[in-house]
């Protein structure tokens, strides 16, 4: 008995797992260097712990309040089923189909066509769409976008991306604190100077590599959400047409709006690019449109094959 028509995408799972392993190794490198610098010195270790707890606390807050922060940042407002019956009905049905708790539903009043999902856990999640999205997409396309966002919620992408980015935050901290100490400290011995130099260099390298790795991870997670969303609705074609429409529109939107929206790219269905898009897909938070369409077309073909 075939439980589903779709073949598992082991390649994507493998690449994502590899990225996570690399990020974890990077974390170990960072921890090792910190241990090496402060290891022998009890007072120094205490200071380092305090210095590291603060930014991690901030990151934790960003994760814990991710729903409120993103809603406030996008000026999105939660809507009741009476205010947006159509939107709620779509989310209701998709959640019943996927057997997941229903997230809160929000609407942002902006012409930028986009959607995002946030919140620290599936029980605390919010799915938001902009009014510009509703104006441009058909109901079936809007539903495809919602199923992509619900997949982000089911995959706990906010949590995974927050944990993944903590390596970069710590590395940045190490880099800066080492740089400041080396500038401030005069009359120290040569050994201390060398340690600070190494710490700065390690910080820079780890920061750069972790930045690239989190972007790789983000792109893989977009692909995973595309895939899961298309499988959920059984209609990859609707997500394809929605993505094509949104990306075409994103290019024509005035730049000021795009910049304002940029910090929230990680949770968007389609990133609000500025002119930075040219400098390589290496830094992009989302995979290129062709790649997303290619994956969805593959799913569509699987649906066309006789059982």
């Amino acid at each position, binding site marked *: 008995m075939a439980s589903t028509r779709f073949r598992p995408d082991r390649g994507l799972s493998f690449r994502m797992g590899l990225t996570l392993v690399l990020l974890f190794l990077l974390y170990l490198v960072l921890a090792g260097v910190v241990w090496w610098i402060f290891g022998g010195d009890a007072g120094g270790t205490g200071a380092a712990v305090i210095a590291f707890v603060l930014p991690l606390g901030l990151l934790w807050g960003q994760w814990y309040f991710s729903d409120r922060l993103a809603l406030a940042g996008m000026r999105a407002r939660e809507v009741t089923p009476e205010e947006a019956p159509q939107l709620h009905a779509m989310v209701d049905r998709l959640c019943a*189909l996927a057997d997941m708790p229903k997230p809160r539903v929000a609407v942002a009043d902006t012409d930028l066509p986009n959607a995002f999902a946030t919140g620290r856990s599936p029980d605390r999640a919010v799915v938001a769409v902009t009014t510009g999205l509703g104006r441009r997409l058909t*109901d079936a396309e809007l*539903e495809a976008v919602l199923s992509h966002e619900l997949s982000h919620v089911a*995959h706990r992408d906010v949590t995974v991306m927050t944990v993944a980015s903590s390596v970069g935050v710590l590395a940045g901290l190490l880099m800066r604190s080492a740089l400041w100490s080396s500038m401030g400290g005069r009359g120290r011995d040569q050994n201390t100077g060398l340690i600070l130099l190494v710490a700065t260099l390690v910080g820079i390298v780890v920061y750069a590599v972790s930045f690239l790795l989190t972007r790789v991870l983000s792109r893989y997670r977009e692909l995973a959400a595309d895939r899961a969303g298309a499988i959920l609705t059984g209609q990859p074609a609707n997500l394809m047409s929605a993505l094509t429409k949104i990306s075409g529109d994103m290019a024509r939107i005035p730049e000021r709006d795009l910049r304002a929206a940029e910090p929230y790219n990680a949770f968007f269905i389609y990133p609000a690019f500025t002119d930075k898009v040219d400098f390589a897909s290496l830094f992009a938070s989302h995979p290129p449109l062709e790649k997303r369409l290619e994956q969805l077309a593959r799913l569509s073909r699987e649906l066309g094959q006789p059982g």
Partner: protein
Amino acid sequence: MGLFDSLLGRSKPKRPKLDALFALPTAALTLETAAGFTPTGIGSVCYREAEGAPFEQIQAQLEQLLAGASPERVRDSYGWTWLVLRREPSDVAGLVTELHAVNSTLELEGFGPALLCSLIGFADASGRRLALVYLYKRGTFYPFAPVPGAEQKRDNALELQIRAVVGGDLPIEPDVSRWFPVWGAPGLDAPPALPSG
């Protein structure tokens, strides 16, 4: 979803639970004796139509298979497909068997995850309508009672009463936030359509 699946961004499509549906004939009897609601003889299966020719063919097969229950395929305003089946109001067991035929066919062909819910209609002497909704992914039922004539209002008091009445016969969805409304579900708003012949 487990930790590992979260980390790898893999969600497996949820497979439907089909067996709890067979508890319905008993519940229908209880409903009639305890609350005065009788079956309308209308049942429906709501699913997500997948794109591609194979799914089209399965739907055509289903309509042939169930020709005795005058199946009618309705596309609702949200893009979901309802396969509506009609039987003699007294023959709830026959209706359930036919609903099960739809479910098991879709499951067998690899489209089990596309099943959303199933509805069995009831009405009382004063014309109030009620549906028992079966959630495939949860394996649970819940009552849905739209207020007659009102725009998108549901009769919560009646729904809770029905929950108490059939709670012994059917697994009722404990999380009421999952009792999602199915406005305009075929066979629920219209007056009972009796099968001809």
